């Protein structure tokens, strides 16, 4: 005869659902994409053509005339800021021992992150190469004389 032994302990009560798994996956995926984006960015800005001497307002305006670079820079902005902020969040969680300190740090991090993303996205999407009154001198085909 076999003895019936019921499960000695009922399952642990579930804590609230959390995003930690997706955070972990995001860090790896965004990290891999950022490697390409950032080194591509550095290569195009610092090595191609005149290199670092070529960077000025016209250089950026020229890049952003092409939707490809707008998407590139926009992706880099979003991925890098969320990646960095999530990394800072884990550091805050690891080092802040008091719950209140942890909460304040985390809220501050995400508010700063959101502000930077909104500002950056605004710049990329609403960029006007002719904002400079002298723009017609170095972008003659694009901007009219003001």
């Amino acid at each position, binding site marked *: 005869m076999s003895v019936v032994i019921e499960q000695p302990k009922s*399952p*642990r009560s*579930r804590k609230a659902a*959390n995003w*930690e*798994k997706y955070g972990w996956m995001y860090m790896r995926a965004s990290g891999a994409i950022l490697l390409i984006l950032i080194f591509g960015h550095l290569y195009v800005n610092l090595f191609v053509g005149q290199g670092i001497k070529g960077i000025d307002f016209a250089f950026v305006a020229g890049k952003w005339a092409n939707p490809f670079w707008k998407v590139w820079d926009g992706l880099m902005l979003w991925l890098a800021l969320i990646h960095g902020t999530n990394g800072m969040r884990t550091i805050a969680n690891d080092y802040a021992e008091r719950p209140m300190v942890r909460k304040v740090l985390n809220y501050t991090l995400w508010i700063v992150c959101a502000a930077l993303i909104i500002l950056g996205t605004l710049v990329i999407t609403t960029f006007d190469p002719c904002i400079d009154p002298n723009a017609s001198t170095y972008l003659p085909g694009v901007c009219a004389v003001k």
Partner: protein
Amino acid sequence: MANSPAVLEASATPVIEEVPSFNVTLFVRRYNPEDGREPYWQDFDVTVHGTDRVLDALHKIKWELDGSLTFRRSCAHGVCGSDAMRINGRNRLACKTLIKDLNINEPIYVEPIKGLEVEKDLVVDMNPFYQAYRDVQPFLIASDKPAKERLQSPEDRARFDDTTKCILCAACTTSCPVFWTDGQYFGPAAIVNAHRFIFDSRDEAAEVRIDILNDKEGVWRCRTTFNCTEACPRGIQVTKAIMEVKQAILRGRR
């Protein structure tokens, strides 16, 4: 080797060399909750042999110098996992650490493992550690109740062989900087013991344990610092086991 057959034949009664002895200084972290003093370092000079382990030195102190010194030990042979302590800044079993392997020209520092509340001298409150262990349901869960043993192929057994070696000494969990923060993290030992059942082909509750460890304080708090792997006196590849549990969570199954 010195004891070659020729030498043994020459001397009818083999001479056993005397084990060399030497003096060492031990700095032991003392704490007595009843005397109202903050924890402090106390030094002891003892004469030990080349075959002695740190546990033997602690015994010598307790039996000959200061009977109030308090520490845990049971088997004294690295199996029971009672005497994990921080020796010269590293978590080790006092019964497996030969004194001659440490730098005997400098004092040897012995303190309780970190991250758990010290009760007295080298004794800490292990309950939070055991609670995390209990929470991963470290027992076989199977719906069938066979009259004979459950058979398993050697390959299936080998899958989780490494994590069966755990002796619950807490050397890994108390070497983990994430555990030191607030003690909420499940800790390497609990995850190792969950791994032992998650990857056991006879067990049917892998999903349950995966769900438990997909917690805010579960495997995702691991920063792969490898402190646990380095601390494990049984040589378990702890960080690897944690990564395998992470992979299992991503797959949603074993």
